């Protein structure tokens, strides 16, 4: 008998579809309450660092160069007080086969899918991960479907996402493009059910473990070059996997590097609103993903996300769209490196944060991404203007997402805005209690302390205040 394909019927089959398509029995890590065994999940379903390095090496992923941005550092020092302005480095992840660090996540997912005997992979993403999965699937000889949220109800597409669709198709993938809405997940489930393919989710243990090599490489490259770990690493933060994997890799290397998250400030724009979809100039690396996924990671396309950024971040800052576009232009003009805007979110933040750090310290921006037609400052600003967004010079502090993009009048106006981590920690604890609707056990309290990188006392105080 054919299964019912209406929204509610398909969503009710979610658990079953997921189990078949990811090959992980998430139940075995559950406590029956809020807590689950995160490290056990990472250990039993992920890969060791050495295995990951071997997998990635075999598909030309990783070992990307670390580039010192001497001219951008010099510019930052001109904006800083004397003696300040840490050396800024960038890890050129754009040199991975698909043009971004996402190749690391995809390499592991596709390897795992092939090992389990799947004939193809499906992924739901409008980002660089689509091309990464398509690229790895091409190498593995697997079929690939990428489901994208691309157009608004007028059929107008984000130029950046259209370029990503092109790249996926160029790498042999089938691209399913949808209009705005979270029901992308509904179509995704239908496709998994229809094809029996592997769910190459961004949030499985193998995907996240794939990024651990990035953090590990950073520590090794710095030790080789300088005999010392970098003082800070800054990660563009959306779903949290980039930061989680990088931080875990640094920990595996025994590095005591500070981990800073950075997102583009898109506050006030609703991510599922059709009328606001084309009012933003960033489709990833922004607060619309960064905030909800940090304060509640288990909202992804798997039952338990392996990306749990609040466990690992020491700071979380936001930066404006105008700041990122300015730094993207500066990167091209001062360093001769033309890289896609979204990945430069952490570069813009690093430019500001370096000015708080003494000259002898080092900060590394842990990614770059490829650039191309549509996915470039010029078409993105052109698109903003055609959607009624005012683009002009000003003080980025006055930028209102969805209304204007203020390119800083002077680079000294680029400032990282500190986000309140304790507020996010309380938010996670509150969401956990509201989601599970249980009286937290002692195990839950210990888990929430770990999940928020706080302590049991902090969790108890938060629970008492709810």
């Amino acid at each position: 008998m054919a299964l019912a394909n209406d929204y509610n019927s398909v969503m009710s089959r979610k658990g079953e579809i997921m189990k078949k398509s990811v090959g992980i029995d998430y139940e075995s890590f559950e406590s029956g309450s809020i807590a689950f065994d995160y490290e056990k999940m990472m250990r039993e379903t992920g890969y060791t660092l050495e295995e990951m390095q071997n997998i990635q090496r075999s598909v030309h992923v990783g070992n990307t160069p670390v580039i010192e941005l001497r001219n951008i550092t010099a510019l930052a020092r001109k904006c800083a007080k004397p003696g300040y302005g840490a050396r800024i480095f960038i890890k050129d992840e754009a040199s991975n086969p698909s043009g971004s660090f996402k190749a690391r996540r995809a390499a592991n997912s596709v390897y795992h899918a092939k090992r389990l005997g799947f004939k193809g992979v499906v992924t739901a993403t409008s980002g660089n991960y689509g091309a990464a999965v398509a690229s790895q699937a091409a190498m593995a000889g697997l079929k690939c479907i990428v489901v994208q949220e691309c157009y608004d109800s007028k059929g107008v597409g984000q130029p950046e996402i259209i370029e990503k669709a092109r790249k996926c198709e160029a790498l042999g993938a089938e691209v399913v493009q949808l209009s705005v809405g979270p029901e992308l997940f509904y179509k995704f489930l239908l496709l998994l059910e229809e094809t029996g393919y592997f769910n190459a989710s961004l949030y499985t243990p193998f995907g996240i473990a794939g990024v651990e090599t990035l953090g590990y490489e950073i520590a090794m490259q710095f030790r080789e070059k300088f005999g010392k770990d970098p003082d800070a690493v800054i990660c563009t933060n959306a779903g949290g996997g980039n930061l989680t994997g990088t931080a875990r890799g640094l920990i595996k290397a025994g590095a005591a590097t500070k981990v800073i998250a950075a997102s583009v400030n898109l506050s006030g724009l609703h991510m599922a609103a059709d009328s606001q979809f084309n009012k933003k100039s960033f489709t990833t690396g922004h607060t619309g993903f960064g905030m909800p996924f940090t304060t509640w990671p288990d909202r992804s396309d798997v039952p338990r996300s392996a990306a749990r950024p609040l466990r690992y971040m020491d700071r979380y800052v936001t930066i404006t769209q105008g700041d990122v576009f300015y730094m993207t232009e500066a990167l091209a003009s001062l360093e001769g490196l033309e890289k896609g805007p979204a990945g430069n979110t952490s570069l813009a933040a690093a430019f500001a944060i370096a000015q708080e750090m003494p000259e002898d310290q080092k900060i590394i921006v842990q990614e770059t991404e490829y650039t191309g037609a549509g996915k470039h400052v010029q078409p993105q600003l052109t698109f903003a203007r055609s959607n009624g967004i005012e683009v002009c010079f000003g003080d980025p502090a006055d930028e209102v997402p969805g209304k204007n993009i203020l390119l800083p009048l002077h680079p000294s106006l680029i400032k990282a805005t500190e986000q309140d981590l304790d507020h996010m920690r309380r938010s996670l604890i509150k969401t956990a209690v509201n989601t599970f609707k249980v009286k937290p056990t002692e195990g839950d309290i210990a888990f929430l302390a770990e999940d928020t990188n706080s302590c049991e006392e902090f969790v108890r105080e938060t629970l008492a205040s709810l």
Partner: protein
Amino acid sequence: MIDKGTWVLIHRNILEPGERAPQVPDDTKKVPLEMWIKGYLQNNAELGDEVEVITRTGRKEIGTLLESEPYYKHDYGRFVPELQMISEQVRKLTFGGDE
């Protein structure tokens, strides 16, 4: 007429406004969830016809025929004078002017 076997783009609504998820914002609820997909046309047809295609992974999809041999039209946008001004500014600040 577009020949059977041609690579085409089709369109279909996969959820009508009344069928959308409860959590979507009001403006999104008023419009359908639309899908665009490409594949090989299974019968001779005209633009606007309801057709069946076979996708790159060998799946069947149905929808309204929109384009024959679709291609990408995204580009590098228009000249944005502000970007060139930033380029001039950062070079001047970093390396000094011409003098």
